[in-house]
């Protein structure tokens, strides 16, 4: 005889939250969470109360007031009558400029140095080791200040270019001037300009985009897509017949001709800088502060990226290189076609944090007087309005958004180069 008994139905009792292992960890987590939230609430409340007692309640109204100060490097229209919000936006764009320039240069330099560090040439490999160790082990702030000092002390001031017996001359047939106030290079101008596209009306984040630039870019991108199609067709013919048709003149023509035609139609010409009054006028002025910051951040971060690249390449087993060699590929092709595509998967995740580091390090800009968002919103605006907490909170938010955006884009790219497992 068998008796089937149901397991006793256990009713839930409150004590089980502690004594039953099934619920215990959840209980502890809920209690810890509540404690944390209480603490956070107390801190926020305490801060708000103290600020109130000090007569400085949190208020973002100052952002609409007139800033009253001038900014030297501005990508958009701005004057001392513009609002603090506008000044912050000018600063934000300056931060983005140096971050983008820095990331691009650091990547290119980092890959070259990382690959060269593994070179079989003893001298080159050692020089690269010295470079990496030198830049990696000295704080980036020192590099920024050092480069700035070099630029200021070694390059001639603009008035050295003046007069009959000038001690300095412009280079590249009088088109580029290296001065200790920055580098003046020719600027692209369009005599039959299409004008600007005005975005966001009259708000603080209004923004003009040059339609000329847009049109030229469209022509260039169209040319590149056309060149890709030519290349794909060549691939198909090669697969089918074994012979690859010569395409380089087609590719070159497709990329260059439409762009040149568009530029000619718009009346493209260069505006050269010329010494007028105290400074060079005309041309594009790349200020010392931008150059010093950009170079220092790129050189510093490139040392780290070089190490990532080296690690990525070493992670690919030697058998791959040997197999490719056995197939008769040349060393440069082995690197480009076999090793680097696989190494990228190892390189990209740490590369993301290097990009984030570079962007955040750009807040050291004030050391050389580069007006990034820390210099405008977190510097002059904060100082003139006395709104420390508001400004710092906004700054933190801005850097958080920039960093998360970089992470998002790079993670998406990482997904796309990831090893597809079937």
């Amino acid at each position, binding site marked *: 005889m068998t008796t089937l008994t149901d397991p006793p139905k256990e009713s839930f009792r409150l004590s089980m939250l502690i004594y039953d292992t099934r619920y215990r960890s959840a209980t502890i987590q809920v209690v810890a969470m509540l404690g944390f939230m209480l603490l956070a609430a107390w801190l926020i409340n305490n801060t708000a109360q103290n*600020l109130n007692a*000090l007569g400085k309640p949190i208020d973002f109204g100052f952002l609409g007031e007139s800033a009253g100060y001038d900014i030297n490097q501005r990508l958009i229209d701005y004057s*001392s009558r513009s609002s603090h919000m506008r000044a912050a936006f000018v600063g934000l764009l300056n931060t983005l400029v140096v971050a983008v320039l820095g990331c691009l240069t650091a990547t290119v330099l980092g890959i070259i140095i990382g690959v060269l560090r593994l070179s079989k040439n003893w001298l080159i490999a050692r020089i690269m080791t010295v470079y990496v160790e030198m830049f990696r082990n000295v704080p980036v702030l020192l590099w920024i200040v050092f480069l700035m000092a070099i630029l200021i002390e070694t390059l001639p001031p603009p008035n050295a270019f003046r007069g009959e017996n000038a001690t300095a001359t412009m280079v590249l047939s009088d088109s580029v001037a290296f001065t200790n*106030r920055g580098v003046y290079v020719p600027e692209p101008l369009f005599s039959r300009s299409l004008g600007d596209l005005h975005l966001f009306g009259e708000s603080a984040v209004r923004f003009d985009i040059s339609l000329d630039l847009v049109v030229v870019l469209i022509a260039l991108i169209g040319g590149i897509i056309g060149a890709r199609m030519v290349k794909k067709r060549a691939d198909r013919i090669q697969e089918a017949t074994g012979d690859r048709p010569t395409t380089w003149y087609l590719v070159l023509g497709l990329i260059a001709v439409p762009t040149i035609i568009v530029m000619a139609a718009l009346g493209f010409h260069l505006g050269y800088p010329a010494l*007028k009054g105290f*400074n060079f006028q005309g041309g594009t002025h790349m200020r010392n502060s931008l150059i010093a910051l950009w170079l220092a951040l790129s050189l510093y971060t490139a040392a780290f990226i070089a190490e990532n690249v080296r690690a990525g390449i070493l992670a690919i087993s030697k058998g791959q290189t040997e197999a490719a060699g056995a197939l008769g590929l040349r060393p440069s092709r082995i690197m480009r076609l076999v090793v680097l595509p696989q190494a990228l998967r190892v390189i990209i995740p740490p590369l993301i944090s290097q990009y984030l580091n570079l962007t955040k390090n750009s807040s050291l800009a004030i*050391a050389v*007087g580069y007006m990034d968002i820390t210099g405008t919103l977190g510097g002059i605006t904060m100082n003139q309005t006395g709104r420390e907490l508001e400004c710092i909170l906004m700054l933190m938010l801005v850097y958080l958004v920039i960093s998360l955006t970089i992470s998002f884009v790079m993670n998406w790219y990482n997904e796309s180069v990831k090893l597809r497992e079937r």
Partner: protein
Amino acid sequence: MKKSVFLGALTVAGLAAGAAAAGTLDDVKARGKLNCGVTTGLVGFAAPDANGTWDGFDVGICRAVAAAVLGDPTAVEFVPTTGKTRFTALASGEIDVLARNTTWTFSRDVDLKFDFVGVNYYDGQGFMVPKALGVSSAKDLDGATVCIQTGTTTELNLADFFRSNNISYEPVPIETNAEAQQQYLAGACDVYTTDASGLAATRATFEDPAAHIVLPEIISKEPLGPLVRHGDNEWGDVVRWALNALIAAEELGITSANIAELSAGTNNPEINRILGTEGTLGEMLGLSPDWAKNAIMAGGNYGELFEKNIGASTPIGLSRGLNAQWTDGGLLYTPPFR
């Protein structure tokens, strides 16, 4: 992540709590040291000498306050601040008093919640250019590159001046006076602008001061004075009257040379009240009776401090001008000690 948020919030709360604390006078007495905010180095006003001892006109105010409160002019912890960090340092309680060529303005007094206790130097903003530039007026500076200390009123005056004269300029923002000097001397900027006294002090340190001129235009009023946090009136009174004691001492002829003799008692009741031999002024402030005597003995009266640090006999060579006693046609005028 959670931990960093927590620590960040704790810092903010700590900052706010520090700012709200009152009773600076008791804090200073308990600490036995005055925390005084000064510049990062401006010869004549506040700069460390070869032995690392701070010296200068603003430093003299710090020492006078320390002597009045603690009886010891050396019981000062000097905190170098930049134009940018000074207000945060004061608001957060890191320093008790800020004596750093700071201009008394409406918004700093009212909106930033500070109290200016008086004026120790009446100044105005000027421009310095190399003589070789051949400029004789600030209105000729169209298109010039101007070095300027960031976070100062000079920044705003400069923008207003160039705007109202409808001329353009290129600002080069700089953190400290030393960096400005480096850039100016290297020719990275054509003009250096700050308060005229600061220009004179900076020029005095140049290898060839005669090669640089200060342009005649003074484009602003810059009453410079020490300041304290708003809302702690007892402490504000102490600093205010320590400064007034120095000014009154000059007016009444109390100098560091004759102070010992005068404190034996004189026929002038006001001198007696200041020096503590008559009345209870010190007690009213919560200080010892000889507070003002100590303050004056720390570095001499206002006139002595001026002559020793920035006066005509020093390399900086500033004349008294507006900073003479009201009896000599200047603006220095202290309320009576009564």
